[in-house]
């Protein structure tokens, strides 16, 4: 199961703060897809994944949403 977290329009630290809360509420093996518009989220999620105890970063990509706006998508897995 993949849960979706939409943090479009939010700036740091909100995407990480919310993602951490969501990850903590997931069961091991479940996925979290975070959709952000803050370009800084790319490096921040990579950095956070290095120290995160319960999450691992599976994928990161840049995309465009339905409104044509650039989005940054981070796919995380609850690992322990």
């Amino acid at each position: 199961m993949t849960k979706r977290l939409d943090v479009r329009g939010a700036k740091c630290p909100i995407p990480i703060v919310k993602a951490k809360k969501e990850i903590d509420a997931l069961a091991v093996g479940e996925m979290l897809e975070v959709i952000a518009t803050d370009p800084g989220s790319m490096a921040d999620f990579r950095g956070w994944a290095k120290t995160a105890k319960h999450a691992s970063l599976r994928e990161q990509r840049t995309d465009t949403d339905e409104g044509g706006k650039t989005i940054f998508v981070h796919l995380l897995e609850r690992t322990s």
Partner: protein
Amino acid sequence: MSTAISVGELLGKIDRGERLLLLDVRNDEEFERWRVEGRHPVETLHRPYFDFIEEETLLDQVPHDRGPIYAICAKGDSSDLIAEMLRDRGVDARNVAGGMLAYGESLQPVRVPLDPDEEGRFDIWQMNRRGKGCLSYVIHSRAEAVVIDPSRNIAEYERFVETLGAKIAGVFDTHVHADHVSGGPALAPRHHARYFVAGGSGVDLRQRVDPARDGEQIRLGGPGGVTLTVSVLSTPGHTPGSTSFLVGRNHLLTGDTLFVGSVGRPDLGGHVVEWGKMLFRTLTDRIARLPDDLVILPAHYASTAEIDEQGIVRGRLGDLRRTVPELQIRTESEFVEAMKKALKTPPAVYEQIIRVNLGLQPLDEEKASEWELGKNQCAASVRRAAEVVS
């Protein structure tokens, strides 16, 4: 107690050598790219904000015996959260408002002392944009001021000139900048002031600016008052249109033609040989004829070591003639070769910034903030290239 401090207040504390700990909570990539620098070393602890969010007990490891803690991040929100978490633990911690974005845009005005016979007739204010190593100037005489090489953050110049009790009578760019968006085209019309920048060969700016001719004298200070002569000197090379301004008798604003430690790189237009030759002629002819006692006030500096005891970036031309490596080169071919050797790839955004400054592309404020992050790379830096070789 306020929970935030401005970049200006922070830099004041650092420059006075006050005890403090700067807690930089940005990610590793941004911290490696650029950070707060002071005239004294800044005691800095780097730990990304997401580490503290992941593991709150890490907050207890932040040393609080080094003086008050000032937390900084990219834009000021993450550091605000971390400072608050520290305060909840009873630690003296404050946020640096606006973060590195504000650091990159903040201006520190410093008054340049003049010769005794010129003191009181006019003032030269060096506006130091510490985050980028950019210098702009406000020349003030009586009720009038001209702004030279303004940054995009024009409200700061407007506020400053207002505190002087003057109005902005003219706005000049020494050249078409590549490293930052000029505030000139936006600032001048707001004050019905004359705006001047010379584009040079292949670039037509006549539609937008009021041209200043080589040798022209600009009077400042209003009718019947004391007048100050600002003379326009064509000094091509860094760009074909590069212009210097002689203010009063003894101060030359050289833009990116001559710095305190080097010269402006002639390769940003993609014509290093042609522009390099132009720069050599400017340095060995036009600049060479100027007196030793002339004080050079450049548009950039490469490190805080170039800021003198009084907080000013300046150099006596006679001293620079002995110390600037590029001024020691005697032949045009050697000079062009040295420029080619020092050549380094300019940041990709420089082309976009040039297009905006030429009026060929509209300005997107948010993009401009991103483009301008980090220090300028406008110097030719033969010295650095030589060090790498040796």
